[in-house]
């Protein structure tokens, strides 16, 4: 008998023109892992919120059909009653905690259930070990990083011994290392406890090998499919699946391990990366940086760094957290004053921060774009009267770039693809190419290797405030352990993307 049943669920937010969910029917069997995917704004969060009754109890609106979760009908049972049975982890790491420190937070859900003290103590110890957060137990929540917070949130949800775990894009606000840590926790719960899990996640390549079903949402319409069938059809999917479809491998491998056996049939990759010289690198120099140094309270963030940027060039700046990427971008943008060295720029530089939301506060898109040239406002004609913060994350990102960087010829973007789905990422790539072709120099600080390999024509690797590798993607990313694309891990050599592999 299914643990969760959705039966003809339809939902429309109050005052919305279109319904958010249309006739959704699906079931979750005990122990299943379900990946929910779909473009941003397709209704993923809404669907997940239906599972514990937050929709419609906390949102209002028109709700049709029914959801039976762990034997309770969400129409007659409030979310707080479902709280003991469905553990819910939200997207934003900072908005789901009530108390100030980790242990109190872990116990909060159990206190709400009125569990006896000794049992709570036992469970707190157990989830701390299960999730691997013993080192965090005495910390205050506000001193934790985003990834640590998400792990605490998972532990807190787990402590009440829920029958299912629902995670709403738990890694979309995190950098890749933190995201990896969080997903590892989820995968361990699945493997060790057989936890029934419904997860919305953009990092499909990481979890595809583990999932039992894939739910694909598009404009509120749900398709419930076998993983291979769903991935073959399209949407967000791992690069090995793209390669498998081109090469006609069946059954489709879902991860690197499955793909290894097929990969032996591929031709040998070229021993050296294919030459890519001349690609967009011939442009005029637009910005030069010499001997740049910057310290925060005496701790060096950028050390004696020199660099030159050319018109028409898209540069990806990669490196672990704290390697100085953001500081470098802010120095070039003039938001920080270099403590030593000089930035020579021949054009206006604009910086778009990680959290593009922070830039948008007007009542309408039209107000945000006031004072911008008409060509900058052109792509937003359809949304002019909408409230900027109601746009999807990808749309907000584009608007933020338009607002900040419309007239700049040096574009500095900090983690622009965080939390974006593949379609929006591709649109962002295209947009940046157009800007580069028009003569802009673009630098993107990113952790997203696949996107960088597809978008950039120059890669800079940064560590300890210094640049330690500089060159075209084929050369820099092909012999890297950390910054390698999935295809490069599979076949090696200079092939980074599925379409580059000759068949």
């Amino acid at each position, binding site marked *: 008998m299914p643990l969760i049943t959705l039966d003809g669920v339809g939902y429309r937010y109050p005052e919305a023109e279109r319904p958010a969910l249309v006739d959704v029917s699906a079931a979750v069997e005990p122990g299943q892992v379900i990946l929910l995917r779909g473009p941003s704004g397709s209704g993923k969060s809404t669907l997940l919120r239906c599972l514990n009754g937050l929709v419609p109890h906390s949102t209002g609106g028109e709700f049709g059909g029914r959801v039976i979760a762990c034997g309770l009908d969400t129409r007659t049972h*409030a979310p*707080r009653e479902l709280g003991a049975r469905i553990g*819910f982890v939200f997207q934003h790491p900072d908005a789901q905690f009530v108390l100030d420190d980790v242990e109190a937070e872990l116990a909060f859900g159990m206190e*709400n259930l009125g569990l006896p003290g000794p049992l709570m103590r036992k469970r707190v110890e157990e989830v701390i070990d299960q999730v691997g957060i013993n080192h965090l137990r005495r910390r205050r929540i506000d001193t934790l990083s985003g990834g640590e917070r998400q792990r605490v949130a998972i532990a807190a949800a787990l402590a009440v011994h829920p029958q299912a775990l629902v995670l709403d894009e738990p890694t979309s606000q995190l950098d890749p290392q933190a995201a990896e840590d969080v997903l590892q926790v989820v995968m361990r719960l699945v493997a060790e406890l057989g936890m029934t899990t419904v997860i919305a996640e953009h990092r499909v390549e990481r979890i595809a090998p583990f999932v039992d079903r894939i739910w694909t949402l598009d404009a509120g319409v749900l398709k419930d499919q076998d993983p291979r069938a769903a991935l073959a059809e399209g949407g967000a999917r791992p690069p090995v699946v793209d390669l498998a479809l081109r090469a006609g491998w069946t059954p489709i491998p879902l991860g690197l391990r499955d793909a290894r056996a097929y990969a032996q049939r591929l031709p040998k990759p070229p021993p050296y990366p294919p030459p890519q010289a001349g690609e967009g690198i011939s442009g005029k120099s637009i910005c030069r940086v010499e001997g740049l140094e910057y310290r925060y309270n005496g701790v060096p963030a950028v050390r004696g760094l020199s660099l030159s940027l050319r018109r028409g060039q898209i540069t990806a700046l990669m490196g672990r957290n704290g390697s100085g990427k953001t500081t470098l971008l802010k120095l070039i943008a003039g938001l920080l004053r270099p403590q030593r060295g000089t930035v020579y720029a021949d054009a206006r530089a604009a910086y778009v*921060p990680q959290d593009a939301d922070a830039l948008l*506060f007007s009542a309408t898109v039209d107000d945000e774009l006031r004072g911008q040239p008409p060509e900058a406002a052109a792509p937003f004609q359809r949304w002019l009267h909408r409230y900027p*913060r109601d746009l999807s994350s990808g749309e907000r990102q584009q608007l933020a770039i338009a607002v900040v960087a419309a007239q700049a010829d040096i574009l500095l973007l900090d983690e622009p693809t965080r939390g974006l789905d593949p379609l929006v990422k591709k649109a962002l790539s295209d947009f940046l190419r157009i800007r580069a072709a028009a003569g802009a120099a673009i630098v993107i600080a990113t952790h997203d290797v696949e996107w960088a390999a597809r978008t950039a024509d120059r890669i800079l690797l940064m560590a300890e405030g210094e640049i330690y590798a500089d060159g075209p993607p084929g050369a820099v990313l092909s012999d890297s352990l950390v910054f390698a694309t999935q295809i490069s891990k599979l076949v090696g050599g200079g092939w980074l993307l599925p379409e580059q592999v000759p068949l």
Partner: protein
Amino acid sequence: MIRHPVAWCAWATAALAAAFIDRNPFLQALLLLIVINVFIPYRAGRRIRTWKIVVALALVPIIFSVALSRFGTHVLFTLPGIPIIGGRWTLDAALFGASTGAALLLTVAVFAVVQTTVRSADLLAVLPRPFYRAGTTVALALAFAPKTVSSLQSIREARQIRGQRAGWRSAPQLLLPLLLTTLERALQYGESLDARGFGSRSRSRYRPVPWTVPDVLVIVGSLAALAAIVLVPAQPYNPYLNILPSAPATNGILALLLLAIPAITVSLSRLDHAAHHA
């Protein structure tokens, strides 16, 4: 270390009473010293980033008083006949404002101590059940204050990136975004509380804070101080009558010293540790 929230509530009540009632400058200075000394051992490495705002807040009454009050005999200077602020500006008025400002500063300082020392979870745990939901609301509101400050900073940074003014004159434009982010956050909190089963049935308590001897000492000392402050109030300082403050009475000084107990217990336990190690 004092951990029990009831002990801290007793301390805060007595300290606030002193801040409101004792308007003698000597007593105010002593109270400020005591509050700082209590704060330092309990701050656990945290800094108060908003102290500039607090000091500015304390300056407001001085400015208002000196600019608007025409009373007093110690004239600093005389402005020509401008409406409202024209006329004699007096030292008496400035001192009167300073006295009020000091009371404000002390009030904020006492709250700062409570915010650092009392964990909201402990406070919730000692609340009687009928107050539990209201208590959680208060805990959330307290948690909001520092987050609001940090979102204000990110909004100012965002305006700087967009090339807009970031000075104090832009404050009104910051207000709307601040309101929006706070509202959005509040909605998310509400959902999170709901999803985690808040208020579904009667609650139990995880690790209630045990009573210790220093806790009891703080409560007894604070109640004694409270009684002394309320029953035998210090002679209020009125610069318009006499610009020199009178010397405080001994019982007023003793009452304030009782408020130093939380700091003293920390020092004693450190001495104890040192003796053990020696």
